[in-house]
């Protein structure tokens, strides 16, 4: 990483870890949609399956490319042979769906009974002819979005290190082969005058850059275009829309994460692929996006242009929403690791943040974001929030009822009970599924954040804000 974490002034705390979050296997819900030729097989019990079908709701009915390998008593007591069982199921999947990759999601149960998924996968892969990627996204070790991290870390190792033998690239196909194009185009762009943006398909000659993190395709396009404005070429994404299109990652390539929960992926890229991970704040909110672009540019030795006006224009365009939350307080109970970046953005919007709960705090990977948070607090003249790692929901609720924040960002288990006690809430899960990255999605984040406030101010006159009889006893 190119920056060192130095975040002394923030107060960090660690509680009991008794908090509500989604199980990390939930990442299959968005990853199977993102990686179109994949099939996710969750090797676990009824408990895992029931969680997925309830948490994923409707998505599940659309013939998803995921299934449970439901363990039975014979599997637990090793009466059945894991290898044979998995082979049977994977052949069935191959026959019915013919995916380009099968991702095995290891669960708590496979951890406890020590199923050697990493050992079985390569053998089976050879036998059935489909790549098998193993990710141990279990609730013993990880929370919610960290599931994606374990999958991407496993996938990073499958990224090719060499160009595939190019099957005679046709001229109209050149767009697909980003790197080839990049290498040939490099010289040309250098001639461009430094203070005017490079023309449509011109980029500076820089070391290839890979972005990592699974975001919806429109966000991919937006972030690619954002960097293109600076003459920065994105050579590939981890993950791409298809497993077969995983980007080439060679030693010395740059990589940048777009989400705060990707620390394992970052270290895999550094250690195993010898890539250089750019430590930047995350492109969430216009301030974050700008800082992210600037950091990438600075690492690539490019002078960024026009970001001042661009950021100012975005702020101007969302002033109607910002004015609703300015001066209000927001409390993060913590469950998806987006909390630091979100809090930083909301502080920039003029909110105060008494506490940021977060499941896990990687001070190295989030170093730049933490510094940015600190700086934002100083610039906005607000007290620095306390960061509570592994929060205890019971204790948090006591604090919430005491300080009565204007908004609590929390999981669905607590949202309705808090609303009934007159506390505005926003479900944190929505930030995981909404498009929140880049300049263009600023309004979308604020749309979510302000929704409870707008809704409840509509209802304010009715005198219905407290809807439980007894004193708020939890």
């Amino acid at each position, binding site marked *: 990483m190119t920056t060192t974490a130095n975040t002394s002034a923030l107060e960090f705390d660690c509680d009991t870890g008794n908090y509500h979050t989604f199980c990390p296997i939930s990442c299959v819900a968005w990853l199977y949609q993102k990686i179109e030729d994949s099939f996710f097989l969750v090797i676990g019990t009824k408990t895992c399956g029931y*969680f997925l079908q309830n948490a994923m709701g409707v998505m599940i009915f659309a013939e998803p490319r995921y299934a449970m390998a439901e363990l039975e008593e014979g599997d637990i007591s090793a009466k059945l042979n894991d290898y044979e069982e998995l082979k049977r199921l994977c052949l069935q999947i191959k026959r019915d769906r013919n995916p380009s990759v099968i991702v095995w999601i290891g669960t708590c149960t496979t951890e406890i009974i020590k199923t050697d998924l990493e050992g079985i996968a390569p053998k089976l892969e050879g036998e059935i002819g489909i790549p098998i990627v193993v990710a141990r996204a279990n609730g013993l070790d990880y929370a919610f979005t960290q599931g994606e991290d374990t999958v991407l870390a496993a996938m990073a190792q499958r990224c090719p290190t060499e160009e595939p033998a190019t099957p005679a690239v046709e001229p109209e196909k050149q767009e697909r082969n980003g790197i080839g194009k990049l290498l040939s185009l490099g010289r040309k762009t250098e001639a461009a005058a430094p203070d005017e943006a490079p023309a449509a398909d011109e980029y500076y000659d820089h070391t290839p850059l890979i972005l990592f993190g699974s975001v919806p395709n429109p966000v991919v396009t937006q972030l690619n275009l954002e960097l293109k404005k600076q003459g920065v070429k994105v050579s590939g994404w981890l993950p791409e829309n298809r497993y077969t299109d995983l980007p080439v990652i060679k030693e010395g390539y740059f990589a940048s994460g777009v989400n705060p929960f990707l620390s394992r992926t970052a270290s895999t890229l550094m250690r195993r692929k010898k890539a250089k991970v750019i430590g930047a704040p995350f492109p969430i909110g216009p301030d974050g996006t700008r800082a992210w672009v600037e950091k990438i540019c600075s690492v690539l030795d490019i002078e960024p242009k026009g970001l001042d006006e661009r950021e100012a224009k975005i702020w101007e365009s969302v002033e109607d929403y910002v004015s609703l939350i300015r001066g209000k307080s927001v409390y993060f109970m913590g469950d998806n690791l987006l909390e630091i970046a979100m809090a930083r953005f909301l502080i920039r919007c003029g909110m105060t943040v008494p506490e940021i709960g977060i499941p896990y705090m990687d001070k190295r990977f989030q170093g730049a974001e933490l510094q940015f948070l600190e700086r934002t607090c100083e610039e906005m003249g607000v007290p620095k929030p306390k960061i509570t790692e592994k929060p205890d929901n019971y204790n948090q609720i006591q604090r919430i009822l005491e300080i009565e924040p204007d908004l609590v960002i929390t999981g669905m*288990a607590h949202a309705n009970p808090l609303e009934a006690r007159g506390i505005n809430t926003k479900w944190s899960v929505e930030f995981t599924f909404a498009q929140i990255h880049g300049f263009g999605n600023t309004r979308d984040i604020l749309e979510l954040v302000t929704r409870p406030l707008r809704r409840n101010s509509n209802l304010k006159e009715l005198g219905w804000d407290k809807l439980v009889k007894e004193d708020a006893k939890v």
Partner: protein
Amino acid sequence: MKLAYWMYAGPAHIGTLRIASSFKNVHAIMHAPLGDDYFNVMRSMLSRERDFTPVTTSVVDRHVLARGSQEKVVDNITRKDKEESPDLIVLTPTCTSSILQEDLANFVERAQIDADGDVMLADVNHYRANELQAADRTLQQIVDFYLKKAAKQGDLPEGKTEQPSVNIIGITTLGFHNNHDITELKRLMADLGITVNAVIPEGASVHELKNLPKAWFNLIPYREIGSMTAEYLLREHDMPYVDITPMGVVETARCIRAIQKILNERGVDANYDQFIDDQTRFASQAAWFSRSIDCQNLTGKRCVVFGDNTHAAALTKILSREMGLKVVLAGTYCKYDDAWFRNQVDGYCDEVLVSEDNGAIADKIAQLEPAAIFGTQMERHVGKRLNIPCGVIAAPIHVQNFPVGYRPFLGYEGANQVVDLIYNSFTLGMEDHLLEIFGGHDTKEAITQTLSADADLSWTTDGLKELKRVPGFVRGKVKRNTEKFAREQGHTEITAEVMYAAKEAVGA
């Protein structure tokens, strides 16, 4: 290993949690890894609970794996005991904790020493019981615990109530329309002159459990939850029970007659014939409906029924016996209790299917092509794919199956509701067919043209690709706003860049 996409009944611990959190002031502590507490989400979201779900987790993490839970479970129990002073804490094992094979019973014993409330370990095998079986078992376990405790303390009330009285057993949180059914059942008991001695577990306090034997009999409205408790009370306290689900006009009458028999045996001269006749012919609309010409149109229509034992069996009987429809297939996912189901629907359907495999049911429906399906949310989606209307009659269910309005399935009002459900499914189906035959409501082309049809703008391939990614219901708006923006800015071509610039500028 079994390849599974969907499951009908949840894992065992869900059943235990449903029972524990139905009681007042009972707290459940799950011995489970992080993320297994989604029961709280379900309860808070589906049934829109105002209160915090009284379930917490004693988290099983790496340390627990390495060294065992040690003091953790005991500490969590005693902590919860201090924080909320529950009457009872139910330690709930999960699939993870059952393979760890820790001595949870020992933790319970140790925690009991310090705790003011009672502490109990749910006795459920995760690899053998499902949600429903576990719920049935846990309810019995709690009842047994408190009756034995009262007996030991000499606290068990003697004798019966003066007036005929009943315990209604098996009403739970997250149960399909249970909250409406209980209102209807209470009303029915009031009409019959029977006092409700207790309703368990929903809303009950464990301190009331010792009064259960004071009732004259027990009523078990649902096959899945409560039967074990009823058997237990019969065995230990000689209490008769009625387990006929009062769903549909005929079954409601049968249930009332069974109650009458019990009361008569206890020396009460109860005769409900007049009441049944009045309700059936005049108060309820269901009997009249089946006689009306609307229902005539449904005669012989083919339908498929699938659900839990209680609802699938009752609906099969209503469709076939009370409305003259043809049930080509009746099925249940309660495999562990299939003999009961087969016996119930015998003679009311062509074929019986007992399976937990959603694919098998979907295939069967596709093959039979019924005019309507009555099933769970999963069958509703099968129906969507096949264009067959579906009425939802059993769990698994969505938030839309927790209606705010009064929608019982039981009793005479329940019979009315079921009629609406059935009839509405069919009219929708007919409407659909007519539309198809005549080619839709509105075949004029002008309607489908958008503002941009005659525009001076062109969309590039990448622009169109991005546009296609916008969800369908807002795509038209995004398209119009983008084009308006492009025109204002003097673009003639709309690329992805222009589209996102428009989004930033006008929120398109």
